């Protein structure tokens, strides 16, 4: 192995429960400055629990080592390129962490008086304004906690608006290339999802939609650029068609990293859109969250936005709860504030010019990877692509090597895999999104690894099929996990 990775020793570590022993402790509490209260007396004996069976008991250094050893078993953006398509795994600037951890922000209680929360409200107002400008929309709610939560909120808004017009309608159109969250959100919003087929080049066609947008259709949910990385060329005409027929255009903003500073959804006819602050705006993924999924809307939706709304009153920020047409809350309090702080810091660091430059760099990186890999992997589309590129495993499949195998082999070369088997419209998809973060040096290492794997697929397919070979954990048996699910630790029989 060469290039980016070679193997090294990693520590073994049992589960917490297996290293526990009675009486060990990592906690400290100061002495009570008030008289103790007897739990049995003040609560009643039957309301007090017995000890928490099985709960860990470890020392401080054991706790620290435990999680540090676990940490060493993870790949991370801090270790290198993370080319997961649709996920926008870009560098997470640490200034964002530093400001989010300022005492006055970190310890702000959601119910502290508005007069003592002006700093938080100012941050939220600044972020709302910046996101409205970036998307070309009129109003923003920061309440949704993640992208899918934003989708749900957006669909609630569409339903509320259409209900107010007398007919919520029944269906929401979703392209076959969409993220799974789209149809799932449609169902939760009380609509029926209907599939829109993509054309051969991976785009939606006006002619298909002409046929599909009936009186029954509430909205079309589009991801733009779509999950092939292709900009929907007919988007403005699609928006016009929907509007003519009383339907609305929802945009999944998962791929905004291809558009920020270049084109604004609000300008090409989008009515409602959600953003993923943990994608486009650099907040860390944290192994699966937290995210934040603000929803930006055109003015007609403003009365329906979740409560509370941030308003300016008597020269101060205030929270307005008196919104009779609001869909209500989608989450307690005001959203993932700590994530908002990080996203705003990112926007401030870039400014308008910087955001545009980041977008162009992201597109450049993807174009470079596409160009260099096209001789070895089958491109999924002939259309120009933006921030990501998709291939199929068609050439490698002839040797019995599938996209999942190539992905696992990439791990041996020191990279996180690309997104595997998505979008569903491409058989055996490899979906690569390098982001603007990566230097040419890192991209070249990636490309070389991919080229070597293409060669291995021809010369030694078994090597690829059984990868990874250099990780401390080899391929895991996901079927066994699903057949007889073990989702918690239990003491072994015979042991205490």
């Amino acid at each position, binding site marked *: 192995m060469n290039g980016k990775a070679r193997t090294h020793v990693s520590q073994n570590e049992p589960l917490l429960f297996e290293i526990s022993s009675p009486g060990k402790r990592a906690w400290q509490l100061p002495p009570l400055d008030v008289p103790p209260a007897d739990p049995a007396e003040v609560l009643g004996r039957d309301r007090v629990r017995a000890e928490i069976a099985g709960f860990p*008991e470890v020392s401080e250094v054991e706790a620290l080592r435990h999680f540090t050893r676990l940490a060493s078993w993870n790949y*991370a953006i801090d270790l290198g390129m993370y080319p997961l398509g649709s996920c926008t795994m870009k560098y997470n600037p640490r200034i964002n962490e530093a400001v989010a951890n300022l005492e006055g922000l970190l310890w702000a209680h959601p119910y502290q008086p508005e007069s003592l929360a002006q700093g*938080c409200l100012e941050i939220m107002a600044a972020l709302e304004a910046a996101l409205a400008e970036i998307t070309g929309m009129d109003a923003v709610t920061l309440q949704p906690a993640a992208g899918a*939560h934003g989708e749900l909120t957006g669909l609630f808004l569409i339903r509320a608006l259409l209900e107010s017009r007398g007919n919520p309608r029944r269906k929401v159109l979703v392209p076959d290339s969409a993220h799974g969250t789209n149809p799932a959100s449609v169902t939760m919003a009380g609509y029926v999802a209907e599939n829109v087929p993509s054309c051969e080049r991976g785009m939606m066609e006006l002619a298909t939609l002409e046929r599909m947008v009936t009186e029954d259709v509430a909205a079309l949910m589009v991801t733009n650029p779509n999950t092939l990385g292709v900009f929907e060329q007919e988007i403005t005409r699609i928006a016009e068609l929907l509007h003519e027929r009383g339907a609305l255009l929802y945009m999944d903003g998962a791929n905004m990293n291809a558009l920020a500073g270049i084109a604004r959804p609000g300008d090409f006819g989008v009515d409602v859109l959600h953003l993923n602050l943990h994608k486009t705006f650099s907040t860390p993924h*944290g192994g699966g969250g*937290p995210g934040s999924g603000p929803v930006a809307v055109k003015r007609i939706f403003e009365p329906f936005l979740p409560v509370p709304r941030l308003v300016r009153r008597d020269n101060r920020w205030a929270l307005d709860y008196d919104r009779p047409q609001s869909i209500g809350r989608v989450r307690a309090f005001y959203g993932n504030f700590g994530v908002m702080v990080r996203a705003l810091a990112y926007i401030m660091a870039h400014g308008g010019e910087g955001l545009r430059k980041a977008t162009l760099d992201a597109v450049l990186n993807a174009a470079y990877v596409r160009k260099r890999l096209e001789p070895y992997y089958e491109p999924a589309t002939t259309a120009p692509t933006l921030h990501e590129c998709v291939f199929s495993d068609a050439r490698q499949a002839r040797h019995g090597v599938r996209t999942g195998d190539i992905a696992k082999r990439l791990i041996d070369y020191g990279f996180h895999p690309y997104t595997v088997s998505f979008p569903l419209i491409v058989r055996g998809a490899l979906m690569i999104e390098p982001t603007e973060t990566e230097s040419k040096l890192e991209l070249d290492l990636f490309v070389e690894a991919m080229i070597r794997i293409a060669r291995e697929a021809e010369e030694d397919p078994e090597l690829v099929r059984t990868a990874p070979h250099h990780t401390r954990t080899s391929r895991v048996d996901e079927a066994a996990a699903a057949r007889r699910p*073990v989702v*918690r*630790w239990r003491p072994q029989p015979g042991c205490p």
Partner: protein
Amino acid sequence: MLAALGLNSLEDLVAHLPPEVLLRRPLDLPPGKSEYEISGWFRARAEENASAYACFLGAGAYRHYRPVLVDVIASRGEFLTSYTPYQAEISQGTLTAIFEFQTMICQLTGMEVANASMYDGSTAAAEAALMAARITRRRGIVAARTLHPEYREVIRTYARFAQMPVTESAYEPASGNLDLADLEARVGEDTAAVLVQSPNFFGVVEDVRAAAEIAHRRGALLVVVFTEAVSLGLLAPPADADIVAGELQSFAIPPSYGGPYAGVIATREQHIRQIPGRLVGETRDTRGRRAYCLTLATREQHIRREKATSNICTNQALVALMATVFMTVYGKEGLRHLAEQNLAKAHYLARRVSRRFSGPFFNEFVAVCPRAPEAINQTLLEKGVIGGLPLGRFYPELDGCMLLCATEMSRREHMDLVAEALAS
């Protein structure tokens, strides 16, 4: 790189976009700033907030000490900057930690299965209601009025669009406990879920078993909600519930003006296929070594799409890791001691004021105010203390009352100030 692509400028990369969509002007945002300037701007915002105040607010967001180890671990790049652990071979750190998290949530709640986290307690409660509807194939929701008011608002929003009717059951005006007779009257043949919070919004510990009996008699499921996770260190676990939906903010998750927090759903093994969100399971790798992976993914949106149990994708993994470290640091003994300190502090304060309800309470209670709660709070603010939450906004009948919370971080001299303000 441009040369390799045969391009002259970066602009060429987007030249194929329809001309009418291109933005022809720079974004109207201030120019990019240096780290130093950004830090200064946020510092100024932080200073506009309350700082160095003692605080007696709870109501779903609690001030508990955050052991130093929590941030040491949660700020490690390997946890902070990794993605959802779909690639098990290089994600064993996150997966193992989540498996431990799921286990500890089960140990705490008396449930058999816990998911890897939800956005927060309010959405966990709403999703638990939807889950109950799938299991029972019924539509109705009965929510206790003592469930956090904002949680009830979230449930109403979700239920409205899922076309599920919601009714609210009353509390006993004297004890602040659930009015069991009223609950009994509201649970019917179409009730899917009864949602009860314990300790409830007033801090009062509920009789979960009695609520379970009422729900089960009519074939409904009982969802027990908690907002103050530290109470689980001392209170009997809600083992009679069918689903437990909770908020873990108390476990070293900073108040952070309302989020990010971490919700969780736990349930019985028989309902495992109806639980929303991610689950980590144990398995083996090809060399026979124990390993973990995401499992039962066919419940989820990326596979089952419009038929998924939920649309949830991104959850709160890093925040759940903070809770995991917190539970590890306190452990079996520490969590109980911590809970006992909370109990002692709150009861010290409560003995000095006029309590509105007689029911047993943990670290929160409702105080009757001799004058307007807002006026009392104003007096306290001048002494550097943020008082309790005036309840009139959520419960008109409790207009002259405030909800007070004392934790291990509440100091006696500040509690004496609160007691004094509430006595005058």
